[in-house]
């Protein structure tokens, strides 16, 4: 009797296989291109409904590919997020939590695995974070045959004419586009981009200013007019358009060199941007607009395009790529292959699935934005001492106590997100945003008597956040309305999920090793 059942089961199985053609997404020996576009807000993409035609090329490409509009990064800073993507590990698991930290060698890198399987790795970096500030370049560049930066201001790191050099061998290209990153407005780009969205008659606060992090409200949010805000946004959009055109040319160039048919192309942004949503600009926190960007996966073996609404995480990119080229995924990877998880969707057309119900992001302090607790043991360490002084001067005794309490560990803000809700945990809330910016600019600013100076040369802002924040992303995507304390069942569940994830994060092998000799001279080829 048993045997008969097995027999019938086999028959049904055979039938099922014949009827449903499982998409063959494997593309072993396909080339791989990973394009990391810095600072793209999801809601400024045309395909997501933005009112301006900022991204026609990205939009078209998304429509022809597997598009993940709910792509969430695991960090808010460029190299930290990128390191998280290349290792498929949360920053707290791979050790690279700030610009000048050491990556845990047990966190296997995508480029190294690809090298083992005969890929020739080339990196063309346009974001300053990948060639100047910090230890990312030293720890990642050895895995590449060529690791090259652009020296042109507002230039792109790879010329379209160079694409023909890649037709002979199997390659992995990592292209980082840094033009959208502040300073906003790509002033050295062709004039049409500079002028594209800006009001010619603008004469406000930021006229003739370089819109960098010292000029726009960054850590401190101060009041600016809506015109001023729009002016910044218009400049931001210029950068977006400029980069989108480049991406369009790149894709065209790949087509002309007959590389599209055997190349997997992944486009993502390693973080978004605040554009005045909380009175601030640039990217310093794990707000929705900073961690929600976009992900496009184009696999020549998968002809049918699809939009998948389920969340994707940055840590899923490495497993997805390796899965598609049929290379074993390292055990150290904490993400999962999005293609494998999405197969049901790709077959049956269902767009909202059960994986990645929760996405997690970390905001771990690092020097010059937050006191670096680990590195500031002892009274003479600069950031802490200064901060202590300032807190004492402003009689912030509670904040001072909190600072002392964190002496033996990092504190961090972490968030858990679903497509409907976002919960952010903010411990030691009284010392949120205690920051120390050493800018000689401030001195200059004083001299010129500008009203928006950061004065004195460091700034303390002690916020009174509650320990958690809860936002309803469907009604309030810009997170203006903190609902914590008013949705008990949602909060309890999300806190439980967040704690569970906190426990499970694998970081015991990691030492947050801080390299204080920051600006190492790296010779570029």
């Amino acid at each position, binding site marked *: 009797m048993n*045997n008969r059942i097995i*027999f019938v089961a*086999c*028959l049904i199985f*055979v*039938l099922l296989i*014949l*009827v449903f*053609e499982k998409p063959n997404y494997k593309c072993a020996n396909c080339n791989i291109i990973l394009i990391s576009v810095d600072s793209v807000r999801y809601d400024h993409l045309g395909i997501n409904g933005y009112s301006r035609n900022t991204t026609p090329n990205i939009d078209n490409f998304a429509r022809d590919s597997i598009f993940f509009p709910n792509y969430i990064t695991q960090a808010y800073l460029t190299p930290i997020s990128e390191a998280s993507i290349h290792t498929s590990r949360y920053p707290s698991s791979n050790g690279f939590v700030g610009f000048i930290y050491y990556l845990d*060698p*047990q966190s296997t890198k995508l480029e190294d*695995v690809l*090298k*083992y*399987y*005969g890929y020739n790795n080339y990196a063309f970096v346009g974001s300053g974070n990948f060639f100047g500030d910090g230890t990312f370049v030293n720890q990642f560049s050895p895995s590449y045959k060529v690791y090259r930066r652009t020296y042109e201001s507002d230039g792109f790191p790879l010329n379209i004419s160079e694409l023909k050099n890649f037709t002979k061998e199997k390659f992995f290209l990592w292209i980082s586009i840094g033009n959208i990153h502040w300073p906003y407005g790509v002033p050295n780009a062709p004039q049409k981009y500079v002028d594209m969205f800006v009001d010619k008659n603008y004469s406000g606060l930021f006229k003739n200013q370089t819109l960098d992090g010292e000029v726009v409200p960054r850590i401190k949010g101060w009041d600016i007019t809506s015109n001023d805000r729009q002016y910044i946004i218009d400049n931001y959009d210029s950068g977006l358009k400029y980069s989108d055109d480049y991406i369009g040319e790149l894709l065209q160039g790949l087509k002309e060199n007959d590389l599209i048919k055997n190349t997997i192309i992944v486009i993502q942004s390693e973080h978004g941007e605040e554009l005045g949503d909380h009175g601030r600009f640039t990217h310093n926190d794990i707000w929705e607009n900073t961690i929600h960007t976009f992900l496009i996966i184009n696999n020549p073996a998968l002809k049918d395009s699809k939009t998948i609404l389920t969340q994707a995480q940055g840590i899923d990119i490495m497993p997805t790529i390796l899965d598609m080229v049929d290379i*074993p*995924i*390292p*055990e*150290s990877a904490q993400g999962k292959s999005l293609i494998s998880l999405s197969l049901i969707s790709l077959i049956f057309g269902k767009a909202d699935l059960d994986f990645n119900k929760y996405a997690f992001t970390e905001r771990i302090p690092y020097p010059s934005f937050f006191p670096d607790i680990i590195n500031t043991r002892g009274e003479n360490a600069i950031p802490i001492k200064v901060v202590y002084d300032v807190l004492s001067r402003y009689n912030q005794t509670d904040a001072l106590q909190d600072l002392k309490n964190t002496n033996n560990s990092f504190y961090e803000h972490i968030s858990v997100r679903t497509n409907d809700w976002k919960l952010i945990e903010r411990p030691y809330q009284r010392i949120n945003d205690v920051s120390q910016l050493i800018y000689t600019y401030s001195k200059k600013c004083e001299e010129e008597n500008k009203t928006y100076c950061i004065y004195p040369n460091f700034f303390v802002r002690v916020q009174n956040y509650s320990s958690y924040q809860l936002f309803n992303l469907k009604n309030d995507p810009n997170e203006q309305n903190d609902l914590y304390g008013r949705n008990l069942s949602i909060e309890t569940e999300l806190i439980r999920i967040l704690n569970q994830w906190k426990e499970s994060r*694998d970081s*015991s*092998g990691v030492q947050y090793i801080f390299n204080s000799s920051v600006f190492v001279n790296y010779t570029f080829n």
Partner: protein
Amino acid sequence: MNFKIILGLLALMTLIFTVFYFDFYQNNKNKQYSCENCNVIIVAFDAMQSSHVGTYGYPINTTPNLDDFASNSILFKNAISPAPWTVPTYISWFTSMYPSEHRVVNKFSVYDPPITIVANLRNLTPTAVTLAEIMKQNGYTTVGFTGDAGARGVQGNSIGFDIYVDTPAGFNGFDSSIPLAIDWLKNNSEKKFFMFIHGYDSHGQYNLKNFTKRFVDFNYTGRFNGTIQEQAQLREEGLANGVVNLTVDDVRFWRAWYDEKINDADARFGNFINELKKEGLLNKTIIIVASDHGTEFYEHNRLDHGHTLYQELIHVPLVVWAPNFNGVKIAASQVSTLDMMPTIFDLLNMPVNETVETQMKGQSLISAMKGENVSRDVYSETDYRLFTHKRAIITADGWKFVLTLAEAPGTKNVKELYNLNLDPTEKNNLINSELRIAYELEQKLLKHLMEMKTSIEGPWIIGCSAVYADQCT
């Protein structure tokens, strides 16, 4: 797809499937072996390297009795032990679990707070079921005659045994255990029994009462006399310094010392088999002969065992005699000695419950015994006396990757890769040249560690965990 084509293919597949299915089923039914109610004996030659055994290719006639026994049995050419020393291995045999799973990895486990009590399977892994327990549940009388030390009962080896002899204390050989076994057999011939016979004869700490030097076939003028004290000193020196300094003659001398011990053990074994024949037990007893591990004789610049995962320590002899088994003479597949336990159940046609099925990491060797290629990836590990922590994988096609998690304070994650087909003596570390294979094997090993509910995080304590009486003082 065209409907007609689907239907056609379906019909064809049904036909093919039916034919193969019934054919396969019929064939299998006829060939199913069973030795229900057969006795079972496991004979353990402790510390005997397979390359010193005649039938494994040793040019010197050290093991005529074992060779003879093997010629009528099934010889496993490529059996790998899950550990390179005694303490973890017999527990692995009796549970078919890896040392990291059963957790008896050193004589004194690291308890918190630190206390000096002998590691015990019951304390460390209370859910583990042993071979003897299951045999007993099935009506067998279970007896063990051992040479003590790493085979000591208190560690958990005696769980499920009606009788378990591990006295006198020390490193005792077949000369102690076999007479007791024979005696018991004579007085209990009507009982269905499972017997474990163990001897330390070949071990470095087994004291040769009279070293005849009959295998020293050259004029040795070196500094050694062949005493267990000298052997202990060399062992400790190797651990402390990473190497010992021996001349070619020294090594030859020590091997001759080893050969004599093996030869003595073999004679005792021969005697035992003869007794079994006399008692008429051979045709109703399954006999498995194996070693728990080998012994290094300077293959990697040291002596003794436990301290590495090289082949001289983990490639062990394995011979299986099953009455009336219609099988091959030599099974070449790579197998693990963890396979002993499921094989015994399979040969006896003894069903086991799901807990035991899940517990057993080995596989039944019956198909290998019939000549099928069952080569698979096998794993081995050691935390020998907290001198070292190593984990290894050997793939079915002969690639070996070894990860040394820690070996001295500061040493972390040292990796080795060997192509055993081209480099059987493991001299040529390919870790920097075969990057792809190194990567794949490392991932497999990490996955295995995860499946054993361990990770590479550690902490990997380097310290002193005593095994011999004079240690860690």
